């Protein structure tokens, strides 16, 4: 994954080592480096922007708490992302999981023609896509984010969310269909606007 690829591996290693020594300047530098992308992750996993900010703040502090445990400084990109995702999942497990899952009535086995989704995807803007994902019920949103965006397997998702692999698969299927349906609606609207 090219998400957090560092341009200067040597300086990044030094930066991480300085952070491990609790150097405040290095901490600020590292924060400035990753804040945008980490906030993007939080926005995907949170329901609201306020919740995303909370997750972001706590997650960043957790990253600096645990950076001493990082054995390979060169892999800090993926490590930072993983810590933030895991914290977002923890937050979900602690806070929002207990709430009732919105049972979607939109679950219909949909069959798509080959060009349908290609056309649909090409019409969507990122902000709209993010907004649509956030509108999904909690469980679906989590699984879609983990599987489609962050590339986790069903086994990993099951472990992270404390569910079975079968649940993960079924939630992904339902979430995907709901997402496409919502995107379809938004894409059309978006298309009509332009």
């Amino acid at each position: 994954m090219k998400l957090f690829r560092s341009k200067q591996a040597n300086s990044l290693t030094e930066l991480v080592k300085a952070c491990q020594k609790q150097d405040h300047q290095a901490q600020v530098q590292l924060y400035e480096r990753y804040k945008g992308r980490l906030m993007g992750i939080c926005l995907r996993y949170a329901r609201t922007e306020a919740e995303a900010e909370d997750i972001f703040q706590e997650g960043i502090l957790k990253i600096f708490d645990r950076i001493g445990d990082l054995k390979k400084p060169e892999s800090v990109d993926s490590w930072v992302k993983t810590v933030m995702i895991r914290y977002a999942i923890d937050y979900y497990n602690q806070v929002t999981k207990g709430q009732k899952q919105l049972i979607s009535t939109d679950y219909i086995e949909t069959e798509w023609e080959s060009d349908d989704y290609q056309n649909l995807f090409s019409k969507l803007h990122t902000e709209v896509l993010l907004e649509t994902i956030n509108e999904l019920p909690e469980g679906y949103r989590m699984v879609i984010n983990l599987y489609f965006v962050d590339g986790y397997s069903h086994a990993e998702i099951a472990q992270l969310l404390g569910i079975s692999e079968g649940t993960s698969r079924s939630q992904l299927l339902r979430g995907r269909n709901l997402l496409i349906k919502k995107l379809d609606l938004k894409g059309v609207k978006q298309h009509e606007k332009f």
Partner: protein
Amino acid sequence: MKNSNHELNKALRKFLQHSLGNHAVAPKPAVDAAILKALQQKQLDQERSKQRRKRIGTAGLALLLVLFILPLTWTVMQRSTPFLNQENTITRKVIERSPVRPEAMPNSSRSLSEQNVSSSSNDNTLTASRSARHAKRSVAQTLEKLPEIVTAKVSAKPYSIAVPAGKSGQNERSAPERFASSHNQPQKIRVINNRSTYQTATLVTNKQSTPPVAPPVVINQGSSLPVAYVSSAEETLVGTTDSLLSDPVEELTLLNPIVLPTLTHLQIASTFRTIQPLSRPYQAKSRRQRTVIEETNGLHWLLNVVPLTTRQRVILLPNSEARVQDVRFSSQLNQSAGYKLTVGAEKKGFQVMLSYTQLQMRSTYAYSTDRYVVEENKNQYSIKRLGTPATTALSIQLAGVVVRKQLVINNPVLGRLFANVGLEYARSLESAPQQFLFASASVGKLIELAQGTTLCIGPYVDYSFNKLQPVEQLQIRPYQAGLSFSIRLKQPTH
């Protein structure tokens, strides 16, 4: 043509990763400021804790050193004191058994030896003129006692004692060492007159060990008496005319046996004896040992009143809908005061009581909003999140059962003391009762008011194992502290 789920998933994954995988959103400045502030604060805390750890480490090291050195010193002193006492006793015995005592000595010898003793005890640097004067006096006295024949032979020519070699200062040091090693075996002193005839004199010492072979001391006519031989604290020459009379070869026994060199030991012993008093810890120990834990027999009735002040520990629960900030507790007594009444009985230190508790708690807090205020203070900007204020006021009445164990300690210094630990199970007197389990502890003093009536007074603390949840985002764990007044009445025995 229809796509399989797999193909659709693949396409969706590709699209979403492309769109959202690198999606970056800059956090709001307020979030930035909060995080940077938190990081800075964290670093400050770490530095403080590091300094605290360092200070604690230094103090601990010092304490360890003290703890190590004190017992060591104690042990050394404990071991050295009997040794010094023993040595002192031996010294005293030696003095008592010594055949030569100062009062038994002739006046001339005693004065010389006393002078030597005082000189050696006060100052090691004995002046040469003083010693020489004593030496001349001794020689003169000896010569007066000599028989006429010897006197006639010897007095015709002036006598002198020749120093074998070296300066007088060197002899001051070397001579006592030599004489100290020589003992009852007489040492030969050769007396030289003008006719070059050698006359030997006997130098008597009182040491008992086998002497090494000492070179003879040559006494030459015309030269003065060497200072060192006479000023030695260990030896004194005393003339023994009898030996001269019996000796046809004009031998001279000049001076008396010396006084024992015991003063050095006596001084050391007396110095060490001043360090001796070490009995304080033993006294403290024996005092401590006198502290007695009383056994209370019989039945006692108890009435207890505890004015309380309530403290709270607030736990903020994460909530996506609202975030709580600025939690504060009321410091006013009428909003945080309470009391506890207990009535019961005690037997063999175990107390069983019924309790009634009234508690008040008040806390203010704010729900965070998305509005911020930037405050400037000396070119430093601080961002404060605004909140909607809210208040939680709780007034709880509890009824329950208390079980305690009381220890009564009789201390000779502090008098009669007590210590209580116990558990309390209580239920709130509300329509939806809540259950509580408290652990309580109290210590204090027992004051005898009358025959069989005792007042127990002392601080009291309560710890709750249960939490209250007045609102969704807050959990409160109450603590109470107060001053306990308890009347203990003994059941009269028939």
